[in-house]
């Protein structure tokens, strides 16, 4: 059980953590702005993988094309869902929207089973990113480093977008008080749609990146959803920094748990969550508004 092995596992944990970061970022932004807990978030992730599959295997052979188009496609789906369905339930208690997304999750997952057959789809590592990189003390697959890199760039981009652009500031304001923003004359409904689209796009991106590494099956979304919720609970709803740190922690916890302590690996995450809830009920960076 040498240093190399531990090093590889730590990096694997970073890779898994990257997926959680992207997913929980999207979930957190959607919740922060819209108050909607998107149960269909895992399904959007799955749609991203299937979109990548369709682009890569059915049309062109180009992974880069899939990487560019699939997240946008999923983002568009998100925007359509928001503007046609989710929007109608803003005036009623929040849990109806949660239930709506839950129903959508069932429907879309089964729909993909019908269209693509329940058997998973093969998805190989893109040839341009195959092979390993020598990091000095260990070898690590190029593609996995790519995932970590893309996630880092994306997270930075989202942060810059929210912190430095005009729309970003509107979003941040809307997260605090959407009625006020509306009263200032800004069409908040378009911003809502955009935010849902960004969240969905992030999930879709995670799906595309995951396709060569995870199995592309209709169930891939629901199996990752619960852990994503745990990330958001631990990191704090509505907090970007919380999503990032929470995602990385959970990714490492799962990876190291599976390797070093298999019997309790799955439950470790939830025990950790329960512990955090006892000690810091809002999560690391949760904001007061969403809990009381």
């Amino acid at each position: 059980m040498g240093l190399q092995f531990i090093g590889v596992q730590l990096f694997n944990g970073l890779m898994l953590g990257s997926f959680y970061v992207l997913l929980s970022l999207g979930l957190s932004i959607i919740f922060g702005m819209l108050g909607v807990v998107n149960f269909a978030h895992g399904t959007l992730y799955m749609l991203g993988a299937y979109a990548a599959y369709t682009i890569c295997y059915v049309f062109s052979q180009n992974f880069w094309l899939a990487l560019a188009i699939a997240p946008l496609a999923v983002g568009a789906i998100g925007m359509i869902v928001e503007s046609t369905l989710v929007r109608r339930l803003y005036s009623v208690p929040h849990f109806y929207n949660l239930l709506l997304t839950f129903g959508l999750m069932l429907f879309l997952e089964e729909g993909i089973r019908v269209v693509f057959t329940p058997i998973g789809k093969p998805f190989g590592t893109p040839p341009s990113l195959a092979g390993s990189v020598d990091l000095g003390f260990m070898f690590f697959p190029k593609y996995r480093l790519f995932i970590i890199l893309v996630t880092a760039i994306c997270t930075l981009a989202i942060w810059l977008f929210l912190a430095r652009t005009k729309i970003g500031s509107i979003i941040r304001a809307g997260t605090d008080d959407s009625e006020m923003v509306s009263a200032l004359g800004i069409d908040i409904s378009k911003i809502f749609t955009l935010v849902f689209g960004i969240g969905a796009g992030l999930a879709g991106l995670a799906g595309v990146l995951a396709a060569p590494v995870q199995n592309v099956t209709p169930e891939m979304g629901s199996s990752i959803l619960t852990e994503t919720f745990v990330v958001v609970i631990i990191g704090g709803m509505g907090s970007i920094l919380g999503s990032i740190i929470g995602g990385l922690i959970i990714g490492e916890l799962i990876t190291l748990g599976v390797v070093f302590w298999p019997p309790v690996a799955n439950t470790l995450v939830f025990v950790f969550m329960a512990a955090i809830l006892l000690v810091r009920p809002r999560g690391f960076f949760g904001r007061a508004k969403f809990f009381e």
Partner: protein
Amino acid sequence: MKRNLRCCLLFCCIAAFLITLPFITPTRSLATEMLIFAIFALGFDVLIGYTGLLSFGHAIFFGIGAYTTGIVLVRLVPSLFVALIVATALSLLASYVVAFLSIRKKGIYFVMITLAFCQMFYFIGFKWTDLTGGDSGFHGVPRTSFGPVDLNSETALYFFVLAVFLLSVLLAFRIVNSPFGRVLKALKENEDRAKSIGYNTTAFKTIAFMISAFFASLAGGLYAVHSNFVPIDTLSIETSGDVVIMALLGGIGTLYGPVLGAMTVVFLKNFLSSWVGNWNLILGGIFVVSVLTVRQGIFPVIFGKIKEKIWVRKQPQRTGPEYPKRPL
């Protein structure tokens, strides 16, 4: 006079329906399963319809009820009465612990935590093979007699479950139409106001949670005996989701809504899934449409329409405001 007649008629219809149900459904055991989930949904309505808390983790208590009953019957005492007592007691304990960690959180957050706990209990059940059989499930649950009644025949089991169901309905009715129930309704409407009047809302919510867990574990125990076996998916998130769907489609806050919703969903699931592989597609679609349009539930809407057509009552005309206008 007329009202009493109508009530009597309604009661007779319901009684007739329940008594003949096992003979109408394709198999007797389907009717039993319908009632089992009706009990589950009944308790769930106390939580979601009357207290306003949405839990996505009630499979925990259904599963605890099922596994405990099975384990007690096979390994400890072959007495269904004892098994159900132990099962419900254990589930009350578990629900107290879960509630302690999560009830303080606001609605949406509470949902996610219950979901996460459900997953945790699922994994515990999956891994603890010596106790639960892991993903093989717990096999060989016997149908011991309950007192003089031999439950081996499907018909006998149905009528036993029917008796439990009727008792559960009475219990639930008593709970929601009591001072306790009124406090629940108050805190569902506005928790801060209830708190300001002096009610310990956390305690009330916890008790409501435990009550719903009691019903869930009772249903679970009956399920174990009904199937002679406890599959691991009694603890799964799918089961939690199922009861949410049953309650919502049926109409939360009415008690009869989730009961009918549960019976309908169980029936359709069994009936349609042998023909249509993609039952979830239909269910998901119906659910989405229902959340968007008939939020109060399908059955309240249907009954409302029936009431309009058949039970039209002449109301005396009321003029003027009901309460004196307050000065601005």
